C-alpha cells in the first residue's frame, strides 16, 4: 500500500500511509481509537475506496471484521462455506460442509458447533465463526481487525497458534489490536498509527509494550485513578435469582453490591453472564428478587442507574442518531433531561459534550451520526453515558471492549472515580486483569452459579483462575 489517503467529512481518517506486508510476517497495527486502523484495513481489503494511493496484493485478501459480517439466521457451516459450498449434484453437500467446518475448527483449536444458529451464539463464539470463515478461504493476505477483542485468554492463545502456522505457510498477516502484550508475544513487526499517519514502526523483537504505548498516545500513559475508602452501605441486592436467556442460564444467584464498591464478575464467557445482565436490566423474566435500595422496581424504571450493554451496535446505540441524541438514550425521562413533556436538548447537548470531554470520544462534532465513529469511540460514548450523572448503580458489561490502552486506563479511572463518589458498580468482564485491576470484590461465575467470592486481600489470581475453569 502506497500513499493511502481517505477523507471523511470532518476527518482525515488515513493520511498518506505506506505499508508493506511480507509473506510470512505477522504485522501488528496499533493505535488509538479512531486512528484509522479499520479504515486502512478496509481499504486493503477493497471494501472502502481510498481517495488516494494504490493497493497491490499478490493473491487474495481476507478481512476479519470486528463488527462481524455474519448471517445471523443461518448456521455456522453455512456462514463459513458461503460462496464455496461443497456440492452433490445441484444441492449443497451438507455433510461435507459440516465436516469441513468441524475439521477446520479442530485444526485451529477453535471449538464450534457447525450446526448452531449464528445469531444464538455469544459474541465470542461469533468471533470464532468470523475467523474460521476467513481461514477457510486461505487468503494470501489476511487482515484481522481486533480479532481478540471478544475472546477468552485461552482462545487467544490458540488463535495466535493458528495465525503463526498460517504465517509459516507464507501468508502475510496484519493484526489490528489494542492488546499490546499480544503484539509482543506473537508479531514480527508493528506499525503505530496516530491521526491517520504511521508514526512509528518497530521490529517487535526490538521494542516493548511501554514503547509502543508511548508512541500510540504520543506521551505517557494516563495513570489509573486511586481507590479511596468508602463507607459500605448496601445498595444493590440480588437474592436467589434464576433466569434463562437465549444461550445461558443462571440459578440461585445471591449477592450484594455496596455503594462505593466495584464488584467484578470473573468468568469465562458463556457461563451465565448474559443471563445475569439481562435479568438485572429487566430484559428477561427471572425468579427471586433484584433490588436497588430495597426497591425492586427501581431498576426497571431506569431511575438513576447506568448500563453498559454487551453489544454496542444492537443494544446500546442508535447508529443513525447523533452523539447528542444517543447521549440521553435510557436517560430521557430523568428530571434534568425531561422538562414536562419535552426533551431539554440544551441539557442533552451539555451531557454529550461532557461525555465527549471526560471520555475522550473523538468525533468531528456532537452532531455526527454515531455510526461514523470508530468502534472504540462508540464504546467510550456508551460507557460515558452509563456513568454520567453519577448513577446509584452501574452495570458494566465488558466496558473496555475494543478500547485502546490509553483510553482503557481512562475508562477504568472513570469507573473508580464513580465508585469513589459512591456508585455501586457491577463489572462483568472476561479479562481477569481488568477485574483484578479495579474490583474491590471478585465473584467467580461458573456454569450459571457463583462459585467463589474474594474481597480485598483475599483476591488471589491463581484461585480465581482455577474456579473460572471449573476446578476447585
Amino acid at each position: 500500500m502506497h500513499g493511502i489517503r481517505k477523507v471523511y467529512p470532518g476527518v482525515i481518517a488515513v493520511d498518506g500511509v505506506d505499508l508493506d506486508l511480507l509473506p510470512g510476517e505477522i504485522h501488528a497495527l496499533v493505535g488509538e481509537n479512531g486512528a484509522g486502523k479499520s479504515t486502512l484495513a478496509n481499504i486493503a481489503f477493497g471494501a472502502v475506496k481510498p481517495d488516494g494511493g494504490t493497493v497491490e496484493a499478490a493473491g487474495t485478501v481476507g478481512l476479519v471484521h470486528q463488527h462481524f459480517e455474519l448471517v445471523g439466521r443461518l448456521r455456522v457451516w453455512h456462514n463459513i462455506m458461503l460462496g464455496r459450498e461443497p456440492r452433490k449434484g445441484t444441492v449443497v453437500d451438507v455433510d461435507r460442509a459440516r465436516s469441513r467446518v468441524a475439521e477446520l475448527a479442530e485444526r485451529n483449536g477453535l471449538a464450534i458447533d457447525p450446526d448452531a444458529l449464528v445469531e444464538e451464539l455469544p459474541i465470542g463464539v461469533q468471533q470464532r465463526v468470523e475467523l474460521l470463515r476467513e481461514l477457510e478461504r486461505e487468503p494470501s493476505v489476511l487482515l484481522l481487525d481486533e480479532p481478540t477483542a471478544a475472546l477468552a485468554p485461552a482462545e487467544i492463545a490458540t488463535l495466535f497458534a493458528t495465525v503463526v502456522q498460517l504465517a509459516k505457510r507464507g501468508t502475510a498477516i496484519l493484526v489490528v489490536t489494542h492488546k499490546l502484550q499480544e503484539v509482543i508475544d506473537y508479531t514480527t513487526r508493528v506499525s503505530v498509527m496516530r491521526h491517520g499517519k504511521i508514526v512509528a514502526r518497530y521490529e517487535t523483537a526490538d521494542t516493548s509494550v511501554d514503547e509502543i504505548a508511548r508512541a500510540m498516545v504520543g506521551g505517557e500513559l494516563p495513570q489509573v485513578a486511586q481507590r479511596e475508602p468508602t463507607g459500605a452501605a448496601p445498595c444493590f441486592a440480588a437474592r436467589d435469582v434464576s433466569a434463562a436467556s437465549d444461550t445461558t442460564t443462571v440459578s440461585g444467584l445471591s449477592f450484594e453490591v455496596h455503594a462505593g464498591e466495584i464488584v467484578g464478575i470473573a468468568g469465562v464467557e458463556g457461563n451465565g453472564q448474559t443471563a445475569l445482565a439481562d435479568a438485572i436490566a429487566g430484559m428477561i423474566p427471572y425468579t427471586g428478587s433484584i433490588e436497588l435500595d430495597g426497591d425492586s422496581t427501581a431498576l426497571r424504571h431506569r431511575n438513576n442507574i447506568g448500563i453498559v450493554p454487551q453489544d454496542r451496535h444492537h443494544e446500546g446505540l442508535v447508529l443513525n442518531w447523533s452523539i447528542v441524541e444517543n447521549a440521553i438514550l435510557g436517560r430521557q425521562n430523568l428530571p434534568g433531561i425531561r422538562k414536562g413533556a419535552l426533551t431539554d436538548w440544551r441539557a442533552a447537548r451539555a451531557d454529550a459534550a461532557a461525555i465527549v470531554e471526560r471520555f475522550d470520544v473523538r468525533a468531528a462534532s456532537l452532531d455526527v451520526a454515531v455510526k461514523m465513529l470508530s468502534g472504540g469511540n462508540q464504546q467510550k460514548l456508551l460507557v460515558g453515558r452509563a456513568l454520567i450523572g453519577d448513577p446509584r448503580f452501574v452495570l458494566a458489561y465488558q466496558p473496555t471492549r475494543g478500547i485502546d490502552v490509553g483510553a482503557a486506563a481512562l475508562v477504568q479511572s472513570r469507573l473508580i472515580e464513580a465508585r469513589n463518589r459512591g456508585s455501586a458498580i457491577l463489572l462483568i468482564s472476561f479479562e481477569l486483569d481488568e477485574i483484578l485491576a479495579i474490583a474491590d470484590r471478585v465473584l467467580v461465575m461458573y456454569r450459571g452459579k457463583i462459585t467463589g467470592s474474594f474481597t480485598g486481600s483475599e483476591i488471589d489470581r491463581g484461585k480465581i483462575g482455577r474456579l473460572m475453569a471449573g476446578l476447585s
Partner: protein
Amino acid sequence: MKVVLRLLAGPAGALLLAFVLAAVAMLIAGVNPVDGFSALIRGSLGGRRPIAETLVQTTALLFPALGISLAFRAGLFNIGAEGQLLMGGLFAGAVGAHLAGPSWLTVAALLLLGMLGGGIWGGIAGWLRARFNASEIISTLMLNFIALSLAGYLVAGPLKSPLASGAETAPLLPNNWLPAFPTIGSLSFGDTRLTISILIAIATAIVLRFVFTRTVFGYELRAAGEAPEAARRSGINMPRMTLIALSLSGAVAGLGGAAIVTGVLHRFNTSLSPGYGYTAIAVALVGDLNPLWVCVAALGFGILEAGGLMMQADAGVPKDAIRVIEGLIILVLAARRYFATRASSAPI
C-alpha cells in the same frame, strides 16, 4: 457544461426523466405532450380554482401520509391508512347527518370522531401487535378490507340515507360543514371546495414535527423505530409504544377521512377515496417521513391529481394513462436519492 451535467445527474435529471417518460406516455395516448403538460399546469396551478383543487387533493393525501409517517417512524409498517381513512369518514358521516348545535362545536366534534374511528382501526392493529406480536403489516391490510365491508354494509343498510337511492349516508347538516378557506386580501375561496382542512393538515404536520423533535414521547417513538432492541433496553415499553403509535397513526388518517366528509363530500360513501391511503405510503416515503417534507411531497402529488383531472378534461388524456404517468413519476422520484448521491460524488 460541467454544471449542466451535474444538474442532469441530480434531482433535475430525475424530474426531466419523469417528464420525458410522461411525454412518451402521452404520445402513446395520442396526445400532444405540450397540450398535456399545459393542461396539467392549468388544472393545478393556473388560477384560483385550480389551486384550490390542488390543495383539496393535497389535503386528502396529507393526512394519511402524516399518519403513515408517524407509524413508520416508530418502525411500524402501517399500510392500513386506507381503512383508517374510511373509518374516520364513516364515523364523521354517520353522526354528521344528525348532529345539531353551534357549528364550531359540531365540526370539532366530528373531526374528533373521525380521529376516534381511525384511531380505533389503527389501535386494533396496535393491540394485536402489542399483545400477540401479530404482524401489523397483515393486520392493517386486512383491516382495510374489513373497513370496506363494514362501511359498505352500514351505508347500504342501517345508515342508508332515506333520500339517496345509492349507498351513502344522508347529507351532513350544513352546520357540520368545515368552514371555507379564509379570504386572503381580495382572494376569496368561498366558491371553491377549499376549506380550512388544509390548515388543519399543516398544523398537524407542525405538531408532529414538534412531537418528533422536541418531546420525550417523540424521542422514544423514534428510538423504537430506529433501534428497537436499544430502545427496549433503554426502558421504553415497546408494546405500549406500538399500541400508542398505531392508534395515533390511525387517528391522523381518520382525521383525514373526517375532513373529506365534512369538507368535500358532505356525506359519507364508500368511494370516498381512490386509494389515497396507498398513494400516501409513497407520499410519506418520498417526504422522508419528515412531516414538513411530507407536506411538500403531498403538494407535488396534489398537483398531479388535480392537474390529472384537467388533462382528462382538456387534453383528452384518459384517466388510466394519467395513472401510468403518476406511477412513472413515483418510480423516478423513488430514485432521486440515487441521483442526489451521484450528483454529490460526481467528479466535476
